[in-house]
């Protein structure tokens, strides 16, 4: 080092700021909003489509009214449990994009913990429901020997279980990364002065 540290720092700052390209405001925002809207519409269409197909399959497969009523109650209970979990799991979590970095990292960790919990919840719920479905199928004489319950079971429960596993793997990976990041930040500040 031949120059004084402050001069060197000022020179680095000048080099750093040589990239003065502006951000194309209208293009950035418009494209981002369009993409976001498209994604939301696609997700909603998929959710509605899956629900309609699943309900249609269940309705077609079920022969008697009392059984249909029982399934309606079961579906309602399923929704109730799902929504109760979602609301409980989201408490105290918001999108604090303008918080300080320290607060943001803490909240990001908490958010990812909730995602991990969601993954386990989905897997647990699907397992219980699949077991109940198997028992009901076994005890319904009209279903014995029919492939429909098994197609339904593998299709619906298997699909949800796969989704739950995928979600859990992703959330656990994110947890590893955010924990590593938080530890890096703490370790940096705790290093003895060189």
């Amino acid at each position, binding site marked *: *080092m031949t*120059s004084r*540290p402050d001069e*060197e*720092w000022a*020179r*680095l*700052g*000048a*080099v*750093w*700021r*040589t*990239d*003065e*390209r*502006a*951000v194309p*405001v209208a293009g*950035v*925002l418009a*494209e*981002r*909003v369009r993409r*976001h809207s498209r994604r939301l519409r696609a997700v909603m269409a998929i959710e509605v489509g899956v629900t309609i197909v699943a309900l249609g399959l269940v309705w077609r497969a079920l022969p008697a009214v009392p059984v249909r009523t029982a399934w309606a109650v079961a579906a309602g209970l399923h929704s109730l449990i799902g929504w109760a979990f979602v609301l409980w799991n989201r408490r105290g979590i918001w*999108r604090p*994009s*303008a*918080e*300080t*970095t*320290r*607060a*943001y*990292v803490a909240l*990001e960790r908490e958010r990812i913990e909730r995602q991990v919990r969601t993954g386990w919840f989905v897997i647990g719920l699907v397992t219980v429901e699949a077991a109940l479905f198997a028992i009901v199928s076994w005890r319904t004489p009209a279903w014995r020997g029919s492939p429909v319950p098994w197609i339904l079971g593998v299709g619906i429960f298997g699909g949800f279980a796969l989704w739950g596993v995928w979600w859990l793997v992703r959330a656990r*990976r*994110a947890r590893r*990364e*955010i924990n*590593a*990041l938080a530890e*890096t*930040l703490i370790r*940096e*500040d705790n*290093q003895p*002065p*060189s």
Partner: protein
Amino acid sequence: MESEPEARFGRILQAHGPSLRRLAAAYARVSSDADDLLQDICFAIWRALPRFRGDCSERTFVYRIGHNRGLSFRVKQRSLIDLDDGLADPRERPDDAASRADDRDRLFAAVRRLPEGQRQVVVMGLEGLSNREIGDVLGITENTVATRLSRARKALRDLLGGGSAT
């Protein structure tokens, strides 16, 4: 006709756009990733703007969002562990006189190799923020900022091979 929020957003990007572009380049090693991150930051600013009540400076507000999105990007990209920039060694210098673009690229490559906390303070320090402003963005004390910055400058010097990028 442009609405008030759009006009405000436009003013913010006009004032801080180049800084945000450089901030994104400090987190993303590939140019297209940096563009994506920049868009993400702009979008986050757009969404957060209605809730901004001036409890910190506009610059602090913008940098908080920028660095927070940058950290989320790093987590998503799983690039925290793999800090290899994939670019030329920042110490390597071309045989002929280094152009400004070369200097800048070497400096960015060196900054990207810094640990997260050091990179954050260096990016804001190079942009000309005071230690107090940096502390406001990160939620740490001025003393911690000074300590991190001192270490970061030493690390940067080492990465640049004992000389500056100029």
